[in-house]
């Protein structure tokens, strides 16, 4: 499990240590991540150029990814939030692309792991 998680950008050791080694809880939360709607809110806000909503939802995704030890995604969203707070919208397009890419990567990876697991 550990290797598979690492491959999709999740620092599994870190995640477990922060959850007092409750592997069951960790997996439960990762599964829940697949149903998380935040990414859709980000997409909508981006399309509507609603920067307030964008800031809120990216901040949310930052929290989620931080908690789930998704290091890369956390890094992207953290930097994006900083820029959005400073009202630096020049970087938004770039961050949006990075964010989606990383998100899809993790999402698909997790889906595979859990689908295979349930077979």
């Amino acid at each position, binding site marked *: 499990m550990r290797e598979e998680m690492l491959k999709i950008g999740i620092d599994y050791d870190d995640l477990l*240590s*922060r*959850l*007092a080694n*409750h592997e069951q*809880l960790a997996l439960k*939360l990762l599964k*829940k*991540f697949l149903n*998380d709607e935040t990414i859709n809110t980000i997409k909508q806000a981006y399309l509507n150029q609603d920067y307030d909503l964008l800031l*809120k939802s990216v*901040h*949310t995704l*930052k*929290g*989620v990814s*931080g*908690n*789930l*030890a998704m290091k890369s995604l956390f890094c992207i969203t953290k930097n994006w939030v900083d820029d959005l707070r400073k009202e630096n919208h020049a970087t938004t397009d770039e961050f949006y692309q990075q964010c989606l890419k990383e998100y899809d990567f993790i999402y698909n990876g997790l889906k595979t792991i859990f689908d295979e697991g349930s077979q």
Partner: protein
Amino acid sequence: MNKNIILVVDDIELNRDILCNSFEDKYEIKEASNGVEAIEIIEAYKDRLLAVLLDIVMPEMDGFEVMKEMNKRQLMKYIPVFLITSETDPSYLQKGFDLGAVDVITKPFAISFIKRRIENIIELYKHRYSLQQIVNQQIQRIQYQERELYDATRSIIDTLSTAIEFRDCESGDHVNRIRKITRALLNELVRNNEYQFTPRQIELIGDAAVMHDVGKIAISDQILNKPGRLTKEEFEIMKTHTIRGCELLENIEQLKKSDLYEYCYDICRHHHERYDGNGYPDGLKGDEISIWAQIVSIADVYDALISIRIYKPAFQYEEAMKMINDGECGVFNPLLLKYFNQVAYDLYQNYYQNIGTKNEKE
């Protein structure tokens, strides 16, 4: 009271999940996704809340606003608030502490650590709360006992004074009237901002006034109950009732322990002093005489004039007032006389009306 609820406040469900999961084995968990919901739950369960785990960035009402509101409603005293935030900016953290947070936990956190930190504080608060309860109960018990003690002391005073006054007064009512007149005058002075006395002090001084003539027990019947005027020598002996009274009071151990004692002693010794220095036993003058001794002087004179005594009939109200105001019974403090005049008629109506009627019939 069953205190076992922890409130988790965060707009991100995942964060709430992690915290709930960590504490739900031992505690009942309530959740809120914004500040407004949080305040509602805190208000509803304030007696059962052990802790609030509070995020800062939330819609509707953020964590700082929640704490401000809690402060306004005095809810922080017994409920520890832990701020859980992803902010690392020191000014944020400082603000959190300034608003009363007991700890600030940065995200992402290690659950076993914060569990320990939170449970340590909860234990401390529980302990503090139960200590506070014990102290409150003790205070109540002490206050109750103090009251009982005071009532016992007052009982002694009343009994003693009534018995002593019984020898030369019509009845034991004199003692009660002096108490009431003393208190009425004190209240009048306070009402007009001339002096500051607490209600407790007024109660005490009133009771102390009751003992003003205990020294009469040392005066022989011949003198005390002589129907006519006293000779010079007899009067000198009579005057000693002030000092003899003090000697008696000094010997009552129970009384000496009480707050009453200082007032009793002073009044007993100085209720025959006069403002112009012509009183006895010490010849004190003006404001050398304590205001309460001055009040009891005037009360004593007033009562003596209006009641029947062995050596005189009862005077009418108008006559008594004239004698006092004209200085026929000694010189009194002009300020005190002014306020005495303001209350004298009410006192007459309340306490002497019956006596007056009785005299007219005779």
